[in-house]
């Protein structure tokens, strides 16, 4: 984990001091979550999620969000083995098949498998996209959505590249390379709106009935309803209340580093950061309202 953090993808243009402060904060965040939940296991890619949250909302809120995500949306990826991750990935091909059988057949023939989408799911695309605004946009979307939404997003992304894929040589290497490199000008807004309607058209329950694949049950999906209910019952001022009374003594109190904060705000678009913060605050007390918006 320490070596992942030391080589994690922090923004360019930072001084060594800023970088090392951020890396320390990142380690604090991750250790806090793993310490609080011994049943969770670190995976390479978890630090990508942590760094996105840290750069956007800072150490305290970032740690709180990372903790909630770890026990909910990202829970399936934090088992001791990757069997449950594999189960989540196994939704990908049936989803593609449900929309475009020809593309599905092509992918099967190429033997490409689903590994090209692995990092998309477990880092919410944070590992593969170089444009931080695009990452934030997708994080906003996934924060406000069902835990399986990233798989629908992956399927939708492949579907939107259908023509490109079908023109590619039908072998594992060519298709893997094509799919794992996402074009920089990919239309994310279209992707998000299509993914959302795709999810409504073919909800996970329907898909499970249609496919006979043996799967481990998704803990993330199973716990989502209770997350929604508990969030809905929270008071709107719960965030403020938590800030007045620190939730735990394990979280290290750090003096805020103005330099770093300035750098961070300069890097993360203030619009994206604000949107993420608003989404999170809103999610605390009204996920249904928010889901309605999408």
């Amino acid at each position, binding site marked *: 984990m320490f070596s992942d953090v030391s080589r994690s993808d922090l923004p360019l243009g930072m001084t060594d001091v800023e970088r090392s402060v951020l890396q320390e904060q990142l380690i604090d965040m991750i250790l806090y979550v793993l310490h609080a939940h011994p049943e969770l296991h670190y995976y*390479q*890619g978890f630090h990508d999620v942590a760094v996105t949250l840290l750069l956007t909302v800072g150490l305290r809120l970032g740690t709180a969000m990372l903790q909630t995500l770890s026990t909910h949306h990202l829970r399936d990826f934090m088992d001791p*083995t990757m069997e449950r991750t*594999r189960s989540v990935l196994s939704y990908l091909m049936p989803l593609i098949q449900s929309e475009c059988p020809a593309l599905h057949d092509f992918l099967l023939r190429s033997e490409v498998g689903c590994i090209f989408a692995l990092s998309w799911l477990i880092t919410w695309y944070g590992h593969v996209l170089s444009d931080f605004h695009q990452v934030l946009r997708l994080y906003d979307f996934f924060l406000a959505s069902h835990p399986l939404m990233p798989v629908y997003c992956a399927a939708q992304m492949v579907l939107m590249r259908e023509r490109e894929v079908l023109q590619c040589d039908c072998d594992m*290497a060519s298709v*893997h390379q094509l799919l794992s490199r996402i074009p920089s000008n990919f239309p994310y807004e279209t992707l998000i709106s299509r993914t959302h309607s795709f999810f409504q058209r073919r909800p996970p329950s329907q898909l499970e009935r249609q496919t006979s694949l043996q799967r481990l049950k998704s803990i993330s999906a199973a716990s989502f309803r209770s997350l929604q209910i508990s969030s809905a019952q929270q008071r709107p001022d719960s965030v403020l209340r938590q800030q007045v009374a620190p939730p735990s003594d394990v979280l290290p109190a750090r003096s805020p580093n103005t330099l770093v904060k300035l750098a961070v705000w300069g890097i993360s678009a203030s619009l994206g950061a604000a949107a993420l913060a608003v989404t999170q605050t809103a999610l605390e007390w009204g996920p249904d309202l928010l889901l309605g918006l999408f």
Partner: protein
Amino acid sequence: MAKQYDVLFRLLLIGDSGVGKTCLLCRFTDNEFHPSHISTIGVDFKMKTIDVDGIKVRIQIWDTAGQERYQTITKQYYRRAQGIFLVYDITSERSYQHIMKWASDVDEYAPDGVQKILIGNKADEEHKRQVGKHQGMKLAEEYGMDFYETSACTNYNIKESFTRLTELVLMAHRKELDGLRLASNDELNLAELEEDGRKADGTANSKSCWC
């Protein structure tokens, strides 16, 4: 269309997380070095065509994630490889100790006759060295492998080690290649030929495969 290569095959890079597998690959294919390369999740690959004894060899080099939990995924790629680099970091005794485990995975999952090379990377970091060169040589000898100390940072022994493994694979498949060359002028896809052979044997990949 002009023939771009004579033969194609697949090499695989394995070893602990952070030993420099991705850096070795980037140095070899793009002649680039980034000291803080982000970790590899799952698998990735790069291609390069090199000339070995007048034969244009297209090599597809698969780079794997080193973290233990990803091994259920990466093992599925072993069976497609004709050559494997086992990589450790000379500044990490632990990564050297783990070569034993990587080698036993190769025995279990890679095809018979796969060619192997042992690599001790980060040779430029002499001041942090934990594994002596003689230790690497001794281990390689035990396993009957060639051994190179390399540095992606200073571009030391990179081309040499990749070329050596390519030569070994070529030699191992010399007979098949010569036979096929007589039969056809088309480019040879060794990887696919092998796979066809396997399918004919009735030992095609199991359904539970990830890749």
